C-alpha cells in the first residue's frame, strides 16, 4: 500500500517512465496475444507505409507498415521487445551477480584478493569491448547464450568497479567494524552488512547498465552476432531496415524509437528514485 502511495505521488516524468516500462513488460509477457500477426508472417509488400499512408493501394491494414520482407512492423516490435528485453535483462542480472559478488569480495577482503581482482578487471578494461566480444564469439560461436555470457562478463567489470567503490566506503563504516569485532564471517559481512547498504546506488546502476547492454546487443546484431534471424529484436530490426532511411522510408525509426523510449523511461524512473549520484558510468 505504501509503495502504491509512493508511486501515486511520483512526479509526472517518473509516471511516464513507469507507464512506458509497463507497456514494454506487457509486450514481453503477452506478445503472442497482443501482436496482430505472427512473428515471421509475411503480410504484404516490403516497406508499405502504415497509418500515415493508408490510402496507398494494396496496403495491408497495418499500424506501422511493413518491414523489408513485408512483415508487420508492429508485430515485430512487440515480439522484438521479448527478445531484446529478456536478453538484456538476463545479461544484466548475470553481470550484476558476478560484478557484485567479486566487488563485495574485493571490498570486504581487501589485501591481495582485492589486488588480484582489481588488476584483472583493469586488464579486461584495457581491451576494446567490441573486439573482445567479436573474438570470443568467433571462438565459441554466436548463439544467444554465448552473446549473453560474453556481454555479462564484459559488463561485470564495470559493475565490479562500482560495487567495489561503493562497498569500500561502506566497509569502512563503524557498523562493519562492529561485525568484524563480533567475529562474524566474511559471508555475513558481505551479505548482511555491506550489500543492503550498497543496493540503492547499484539499483540505479542496474537501470543504466540495462540500457547499455540493450544498445550493445543492438550493435552486435548490427555486426551480425546478436539475435539471429528470423527472430525479431529491435537492434536487428533497425539494422535490417536501416538502408531504407536513405530513401525517405520512416520504418527503421520505429524500432530505434522503441530503444530510445525504453532507455529514456528507465532513466526517468532512476532519476526519480534519486540514486543517480551513486554510479560511476564510465563507459559504453
Amino acid at each position, binding site marked *: 500500500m505504501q509503495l502504491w502511495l509512493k508511486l501515486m*505521488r511520483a512526479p509526472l516524468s517518473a509516471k511516464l517512465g513507469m507507464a512506458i516500462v509497463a507497456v514494454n513488460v506487457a509486450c514481453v509477457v503477452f506478445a503472442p496475444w497482443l501482436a496482430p500477426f505472427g512473428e515471421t508472417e509475411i503480410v504484404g509488400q516490403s516497406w508499405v507505409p502504415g497509418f500515415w499512408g493508408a490510402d496507398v493501394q494494396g496496403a495491408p491494414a497495418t499500424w506501422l507498415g511493413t518491414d523489408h520482407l513485408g512483415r508487420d512492423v508492429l508485430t515485430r516490435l512487440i515480439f522484438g521487445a521479448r527478445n531484446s528485453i529478456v536478453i538484456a535483462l538476463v545479461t544484466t542480472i548475470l553481470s550484476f551477480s558476478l560484478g557484485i559478488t567479486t566487488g563485495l569480495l574485493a571490498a570486504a577482503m581487501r589485501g591481495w584478493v582485492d589486488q588480484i581482482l582489481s588488476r584483472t578487471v583493469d586488464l579486461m578494461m584495457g581491451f576494446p569491448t567490441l573486439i573482445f566480444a567479436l573474438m570470443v564469439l568467433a571462438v565459441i560461436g554466436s548463439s544467444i547464450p554465448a552473446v549473453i555470457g560474453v556481454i555479462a562478463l564484459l559488463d561485470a567489470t564495470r559493475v565490479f568497479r562500482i560495487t567495489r567503490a561503493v562497498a569500500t566506503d561502506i566497509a569502512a563504516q*563503524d*557498523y562493519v*567494524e*562492529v561485525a568484524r*569485532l*563480533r*567475529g562474524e564471517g566474511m559471508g555475513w559481512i558481505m551479505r548482511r552488512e555491506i550489500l543492503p547498504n550498497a543496493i540503492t546506488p547499484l539499483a540505479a546502476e542496474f537501470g543504466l547498465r540495462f540500457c547499455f547492454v540493450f544498445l550493445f546487443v543492438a550493435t552486435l546484431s548490427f555486426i551480425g552476432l546478436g539475435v539471429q534471424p528470423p527472430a525479431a529484436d529491435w537492434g536487428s530490426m533497425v539494422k535490417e531496415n536501416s538502408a531504407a532511411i536513405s530513401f525517405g522510408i520512416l520504418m527503421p525509426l520505429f524500432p530505434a524509437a522503441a530503444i530510445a523510449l525504453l532507455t529514456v523511461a528507465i532513466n526517468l524512473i532512476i532519476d526519480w528514485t534519486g540514486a543517480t549520484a551513486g554510479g560511476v558510468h564510465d563507459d559504453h
Partner: protein
Amino acid sequence: MIIDQVPQRIVPAPCNDEAPLLDMRGLRIEARSGEAWHVIVHGLDLTLRRGEVLGLIGESGAGKSTIGLAAMGHARPGCRFAGGSILFSGRDLLREPAAGRRALRGTRIAYVAQSAAAAFNPAHRLIDQVVETAVERGGRSRVDAMADAKDLFRRLSLPEPETIGLRYPHEVSGGQLQRVMTAMAMVCRPDLIIFDEPTTALDVTTQVEVLAAIRSVVEDFHTAALYITHDLAVVAQLAHRIMVLRHGRLVEEAPTRTMLEAPCEDYTRSLWAVRTLEKPAEPEAPCLLQMEQVGAAYGARRVLDDISIRIERGRTVAVVGESGSGKSTLARVITGLLPPVAGAIVFAGEPLPAQTQKRSKAQLRRIQMIYQSPDAALNPRHTVREVIGRPLEFYGGLKGREREVRTLALLDMIEMSATHLDRLPSELSGGQKQRICIARALAAEPELMICDEVTSALDQIVQAGILKLLRQLQTELSLSYLFITHDIATVKAIADRIVVMHRGKIVEQGDKREILAPPHPAYTELLLSSVPGLDPDWLTRLLAERERDGGTHATSWPDRLPKTGNRHV
C-alpha cells in the same frame, strides 16, 4: 597580541536609540519531510542592534542555524519561508528579489560556518577566497583587498600573515582556518556576521584562541553578530544578550549575566546538565585489563608509545586528550584492529592475542565497544530487533522466543520498549540510537566496554541521560569502562581514574580527584584551563592570566601543535 591590557572586560552597551540592524517579526520557516511541510520555526521575533552580539543557543533541532541563515535571506534546500518578515537595515529580505539579497551577502552580511575545513573550497588558495567578495562585488582592487586581508590575518594572530593566504585549506589547521574564515567575513567590513557554531568542531585549547580572536575583531570593528552555539559557556564569553531556543520557539531571552545567574526556565538550566554530575569515589577493585608498555604504529609512523594502563573490574578509566592524541588508536589496539608493535595486553589474567581474528569468540564477547556516532555504528538497514538479536544469537545461540524475551529485557534495561523493536535507526532519535548501541554491547554480556566519545555527538540533556544509564549499568552488572573523551565535564561525571594523553604518549594518569586538582603538568594545565567556565568573564580572566604567566604560550600552543584538528590516520 590582540588582547592588550584590558584586565576586566567592559561591555559597550549598544545604542538603543537607532533603528535595529536586523529585525525579524513572526518568522515562520517550514521544512519538507517526504511529501509534507511542517513548521520548524514558529513565528520568531528577533531584534539586533548595530554592534550588538546576540547569542542563539539550543539543542540540535532548535532551529538556531535555520534562523541564522534566515538572517541572510537564505533557506537551505528543503526549507522555505512561510511567513513573517526579516528586515535588514530596513529592507525586507523575504520580499527582496534574489539579486537584491545576493547583493547584501558577503558585503553587508557575512557568514562564518561551523566547519571551516568543509566551508573553504579545497580547490582554491585561501587568499583568493578571502578577497573574492571584496574584489568581485565590493569594487576593491585586488592589491588593496589583499593588503587588508593580511592586516586582518595579523589582527587575528594567524602565523605568517603575509604568506598563510597562499596555502590551500588542507594545509592549514582547523583553528587557523576558523580564523581565516573570520577574516573572510570581515574583509568587506559587514554590518552583521553570523557565526554558526564556529568553535564546535575544535579542541578546547584551540577553541580558546578562536574565541579570543573573534571577540577582538568584533569589538574592534563594532560589528553586530549572531552567535549560534549549543554551548552556553562559549556564548557567554561573547554575547551581550542570549536567546534560548527549543523546537523553533523562544524559551527565554535575557542579557548574558542575568541568564547565567538567574535563568527563568528549567530548560535553560538543563543546558548545563552534565556539569552537575559527578561520580563519587569508589574503592579499589581487582584488575581486569592490563596494558604494559604498549606501542602501536601505522606503517612506519609510531602513533602510540609506552602505554601502560590498568583497568579495574567495575570501574571506569577515562582517557582524555585532544584529537590526534592517540586515544582512539588505543581503543583499536585493545580490540585487536591495530595489533601493537610492542608490549602486551593481559585480560582477566590471560594474555590477549594481538589480532581480532586470532581471538576466540569468548574473548571477543567479553570486550565490547561503543562508538562516537551511533549513526555510523548502526547498520541503517537493520531493525532494532536484528541489531540486538544478532549478538544474542551469535554468542549465546539464542533463537526465536528466547531471543525475543532477552531482547525485550535489554531494551527495558536501556529504558526503551517493545514499540521500538521493528524500527530502523533512521526512525530513532540520536539518544535512542546510542542506547541501542549500548544494548547491542550488553547483549554480548561483556566485562569491558570501550566507550569512544560516546556522548560527544549528543545534546547535553541526552548526554546526562546516557551517562546516568552507563553508571547504573556499571553498578548493576559490574562492568568496566574504558571511557575515551575530550570533554572534562564528562570525565567528572563518569570516571574513577583519568589518563591524559598527548601525541601518543601518556602525560599523566591517576585517580580522578588527584588529576583534576592542581598542580598539573603543563599540558594538563592547558587542557583543563581551556575548558570554558560558566562565567562571562572566564575568557577575559584566562587571557589575562596566561598573559601574566609569560605570555606567549596561550596563543602559541595550537600553533606549535599544527597537527591538532587534522588527523592523518
